[in-house]
């Protein structure tokens, strides 16, 4: 009985290492858009790995399974924050320098700050569609909603960001 358990555990531990190497960094970057900081994103992704560890062997697409869990855990994380903190305006970036790289950095910061102020579902839809490059169906699966909702949230989110993106050209 113990030996069987050890074999099962070895398999799962090897799978954990594989999925960590394949997906951890990408999931942290995804979560960073959703929760706002790299440190919290890492916590969320680590939570996700711990949570789904036992089920990884059974799922066909571990990345999709982990991604859905990360989205859900990010929601939980945001829900626990106080309303004030969640809606605190992002500080504006420092004044731009004349250098092109610095200018893009400022534009990026402005867009990302606006992204973080989007309603949660719009932010999730935009990040999953335009950062993770998922299809509408994959995004719907990750968000746990219908494809029609994804279309709607994406369109609204993009509409809110479009003026900033046009300024950034």
């Amino acid at each position, binding site marked *: 009985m113990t030996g069987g*358990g050890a074999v*099962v555990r070895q398999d799962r531990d090897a799978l*954990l*290492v594989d999925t960590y190497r394949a997906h951890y960094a990408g999931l942290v970057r*995804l979560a960073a858009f959703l929760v706002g900081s*790299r440190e919290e994103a890492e916590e969320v992704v*680590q939570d996700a790995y711990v949570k789904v560890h036992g*089920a990884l062997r059974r799922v066909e697409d571990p990345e999709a399974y982990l991604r859905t869990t990360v989205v*859900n855990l990010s929601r939980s994380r945001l829900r626990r924050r*106080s309303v004030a903190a969640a809606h605190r305006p992002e500080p504006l970036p420092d004044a731009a320098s004349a250098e092109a790289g610095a200018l893009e950095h400022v534009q990026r910061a402005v867009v990302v700050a606006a992204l973080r102020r989007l309603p949660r579902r719009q932010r999730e839809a935009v990040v999953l569609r335009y950062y993770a490059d998922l299809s509408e169906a994959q995004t719907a699966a990750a968000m746990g909603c219908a494809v029609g909702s994804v279309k709607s949230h994406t369109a609204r989110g993009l509409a809110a960001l479009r003026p900033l993106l046009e300024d950034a050209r």
Partner: protein
Amino acid sequence: MSAEDKLRRLLQSEAAAVHPGGDGLARIQARLARRRLVRRWLVPASALATAGAVVTALLVLPSDRTGRPDVLVPGTPSPSPSATASPTTAPQPGDWAGPAFWPYSSRADVDTAGTPVPDWVQDPVEVGRRLVRDVLQLEGISVVQECVSCEVLDLLVEDRSVGQVQLGHYTTGGKRVFTAVGIEGTDLVITWPTAGTAVPSPLTVRGTVPGVDESVLLRLVSRAGDGLAQASVAAGGEAPWSGSLTWRATDWDSGAVLAVTRSPKDGAVRAIALVPVHRGTAETTAAFAGLVDGHVSLYSAVDGSLVRRLTFPPAGKTDVEATWSAGTLVWVRRGAAGTCTAELDRLDGQGASTVVPSGRASLSSPQLSPSAAWLAWVEEPCGGGDGGVLVVTVGGTEARRMTTPTGSLTRVLDVRDDGTLLVLTNDRAATGPGAIGVLPARATALTELVPLEAEPGCYLASGAAFDGEGAVAFQGCEDGTQLLRFALSGQVAAKDPALAEEAPLSVSVRDREVLVWRNGGDTVGAIARYTDGRLVDLTHPDPVRCQSDGDQRGCVRAPDW
């Protein structure tokens, strides 16, 4: 370039600037290892050798019920007698020590049922099946053991996980018997009550669930499988849900709060969460213990009136600190004035016992967890110095599980039913307010303390307590005081409105209700309930005599509930 392409490029560029730390895998592996180990804590053999009789609980369940699940009660005939089995009540290494639900709510249930034990309680999957089918009465769920030895069962509806049964085990008669200690693993989470809480009626159950339009069915189920109360709660969106359960039955001691969501399309179970609880009596939920004139008494939490005197120290000895939870009292009894001797005593349904016999040491700040399973205190050598230890026990009065060296003046402020501690540390001279922090259950050094911090310009008062989901503490600022609610990570989760008075001396929380010992103004020394952002006094002490430099006679101090 289209707006969409521009957005893609900016997001990729932003993401490229995020560099995960290099220790993610090690952290995940460490957490998984801790999860495996959490039920296998070793009990020092020396402590077990001195362990007295394990507290046994009287079961009030009738044995002749029909249509009831298999609950092991005294006299239950064994379907598989074992000639080689020999009864034992001594916990073995790895035995479960926390709150549990079914078929055993505690080690005492195992001892009461006796040996030999039925075959099915030795089969974890069968325990899970019977739990789901007979006790929770949920249909369409298959029970699968996640791995051979990890004591976790997956609950599946058409290959979709709707929860994970967490199991614990006890060893009896040389055999291992399993019990369910909770169900979790989905996004349906019960945040209150926590495992092991003594619940009064009415009980407000709180939790979270993602989704837009969810309906959470709440039930209170006794260990015998009786549905005691039920409620349905609309949930979803951003807000946590809460619902109230009310019951009249008193013929149960242990049970569980169950939350279930179902698919609106076909009614299939979508998520299950379960937390073991036990029944709070009127006395345990509506009274607090306080020190007065060198002994401990119990007072009404409604009007502050004396319920009854609990301790009677012999001449020359004084009871100086006490903790009260789930009908259990633990207190420090100090020797004659001018001598450094102390003992730690315990009073519960089984009578009085001694936890730490009288000796030349300073014992302080005993704290019981809500279920009274965990007990923590600080021991220091006479005369101070740096040789102190923080002691944590679980599962029996003498079963020492962990000691942590204390290099500074340390007090235990509270302990949860998972062994997490709330600790105050200070320098030897106690020149400042000290530092308050959360000490994880498996910590081995105070350096692992997760600090709780006041806002800039303020300080945290010495009183703090766990409130189920996190911790609460009052911060003192120039213009008054206010209650801060902390997550266990140390972050401030919420802040109550400010009160124009000094921060209280101590804080005690039960079922999310806060009791404080006031400090300052005309109400110095009063014991008050903190309700809706206001302090409502329960006791009305003499404002002169009950000052710290007064004679203190008749002053009720240091409330705990």
